[in-house]
Structures are given as structure tokens and as C-alpha cells.
């Protein structure tokens, strides 16, 4: 089973994301900010990271930069999931190595579509989900 690290300072968003991702057969790990997420990645690299931008302690952008510098840190697929919906933010994220970008509010279909896009999910998954 693939693992997804859900990084968001909102417990509600983490819970919604967990439910969607578990429905997609992912094992979910949660982190409430970038620093906690980075620690989790040092323990074991996940297959995917669903990443909020604005968080206390360490934001999502800084986390991404640090992750990509780690040994093997280029492997996890990073999908931003944030209310920062401006094209400038999206471009910055892609430049820093994000694989996909979800603009909040999001739903199950969008998460499925984006995970398919980066090859984390088989194409026919949407039919069953």
C-alpha cells in the first residue's frame, strides 16, 4: 500500500483528506506543519505528500525546498493543496519541485484526478471511487 503524508494545520482538512486518500487505498500519515512533516520524512519517505502552504513553524514551501534537498527527497510526489490560488504561487511551487497543485476548496474527484496525473493512481480508479 502506498503512503501519503498529509500536511495541514487544520485538523478538519487533514480528516477530510484522510478519508479521501484511504478510499484511494493509501496509508495516511498526518503532520500539522512543515517541521513535523520533515521529521516524518527523515523517518521514512512517503510516496506522496499532500501539502498546505500557510502553516505555523514551517510553511509548505519551505518544507518542499528542504525535502527536495534530502537524500531521496526527489522521489515523493508533492501535491500542493492550498487556498493560495494565484498563478504566482503556483509557478513558484512548480519551480521548487512540486508535481501538482490543488486549489482549495477541493473534493474527492480533484484529488483523484491530480493523483492520476502524477502517476500515483491507476487511470480507471475514478470509475470505482
Amino acid at each position, binding site marked *: 500500500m502506498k503512503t501519503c503524508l498529509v500536511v495541514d494545520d487544520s485538523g478538519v482538512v487533514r480528516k477530510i483528506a484522510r478519508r479521501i486518500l484511504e478510499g484511494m487505498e493509501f496509508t495516511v500519515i498526518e503532520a500539522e506543519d512543515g517541521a513535523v512533516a520533515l521529521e516524518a520524512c527523515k523517518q521514512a519517505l512517503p510516496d506522496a505528500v499532500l501539502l498546505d502552504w500557510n502553516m505555523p513553524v514551517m510553511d509548505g514551501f519551505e518544507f518542499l525546498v528542504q525535502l527536495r534537498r534530502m537524500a531521496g527527497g526527489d522521489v515523493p510526489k508533492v501535491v500542493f493543496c492550498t487556498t493560495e*490560488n*494565484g*498563478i504566482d504561487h*503556483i*509557478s513558484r511551487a*512548480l519551480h521548487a519541485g512540486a508535481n*501538482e*497543485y*490543488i*486549489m482549495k476548496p*477541493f*473534493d474527492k*474527484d*480533484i484529488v483523484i*484526478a*491530480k493523483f*492520476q*496525473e502524477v502517476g500515483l493512481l491507476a*487511470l480507471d480508479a475514478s470509475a470505482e471511487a
Partner: protein
Amino acid sequence: MTPPDYEYLRKLLKDHSGLDLSADKQYLIESRLLPLARKCGLSGIPDLIAKIKAGSSTHTVQAVEAMTTNETFFFRDKVPFDHFRDTIMPEVLKARAARRSIRIWCAAGSTGQEPYSLAMCLKEMGAALAGWRVEITATDLSQEVLEKSKAGIYSQFEVQRGLPIQMLVKYFKQSGELWQINPELRAMVQHRQLNLLHDFSQLGTFDVIFCRNVLIYFDQDTKINIFNRLARLMEADGFLVLGAAETVVGLTDTFKPIPERRGLYRPSGVRAALAMPRAAMAVGY
């Protein structure tokens, strides 16, 4: 909705668009027609039906359009666009090297996601198409849907269904919560209102026809008739792309499937007799 009302709407839809709804699609009709009834200032679907029965062509047209509008998103099903890029276009580039022009028809263009996905595929091919004349014709039954396609403006939800983020950044301009596809891509797509039940031979000849997820709603005779007419306006070495749940097999031998390319068909060279379907004789609009 009462069963007679449902039957009435089914027949109306069948006569006007050829769409053949099965008996269990009440929810679909309700979800489409209730918002329309409200928009028209009516109390509900029974009032809307009363207007249609009284002969209001405005309400009839709007109801048929509302019921026939399909869900669509960018690069829907992904595979057909991979086929387009990896199988269809390399062949077309070779076959049309002298003429340097390509004509593509999206026969159920809907709100534009499919024709614009093709336009983006072609743009991504870059220099290979430099100096070529590329024409994408998008047709749909619904004028309202075509207007949306022409504008090329999509909500945040719509641009997140199937559109890779790099494509969004590259080919769209943001305006608040909305995203508009670039003028250069919009200019690649011509829009025309068209009912597939009616004669479409005036559209000319095409190298590629995308006709996805629309024939599933038609009955068998209508499907056969449409396939046979599609074959007539397709280049002998052209390509037909159908939806995942659709096939020509068992219906017509005017097209043959391409092995190991699901949804992809080529003309077989067989010409079938043409008769317009009976439903097409019914009063159109």
C-alpha cells in the same frame, strides 16, 4: 415527477435530440430541469412541462438543451489524447506532409474542454506543426454550451479536473476565481451548432473525428446511421475516436477498430446505404 410526466419528457427528448434515456433517469431529469424551471420563474417541473405542452418553443429548446448537456472535463479519460499524440498525429503528419493542413471535428464539443485539450496537444507538438493549417471544429446541440466554449472561461473546479497544472499555467490567464484559455488557442477552434440527427455533410472532410460519449444515448438504428454518415465525411485514411463505452463492432462495417488502440477506428472503405433516421424527420428546432 409522475411516471406520465417522465414518459412525456423522454419522448420529447427522443423526438428532438434522438437521445434515448432509460427508464431510471428521473434523477438526471430532475437535477437538470429543476434549476431551469426556477430560472424561468416557474414553481417546478410540472409547470415547465405545462409550458412545453402549451407549445412554448423557448421552454422546449431550453429543456432539451438542459437534458442533453453532458459532464465533461479536460483530457477526459486521458488515453484518447495519448492516442491522438502518439498514434494519430504522427500518421497525419506523414500523410498530409504535402498539403500541410489538418481538420479535426469534435462532434460533441460541449463546453470546450475536449477541443481545447486537442488544441493544447497540438501546441505541445511545437515545431512539428510550424507552417501547418490546423482547424478544430467544435459542434454541439446546445447554443448555450457553445457560447461557454467560445468564451473559454472555466471555474477553478473545472480547470482542476484532468488539466495538468503545467498546462494551466502555460495556456490560461487567471482572472479572480476564473481561468480563461489563451486567445491563440481559442482561435484554433471554430464553433457551430449542430444536431447529429440532421445532415452534417456541409462541414466538409475531416482527418480526425472525436465523437465521444454522445452516441451512448442514441438507439441502435440512429447510431448506425450516424456512423455511416461520419464515414462519408472522413478522409479514407482518417481516424475516428469514440468514448470508452462505445464501439462500431456489431453495428456497422464502415469503420474498423485499430488493434490495441481502444476507442480508435479507421474507415474500412465499405460504403453503407444512407437513410436519415426516422427521429430526424420529427420537428427539429
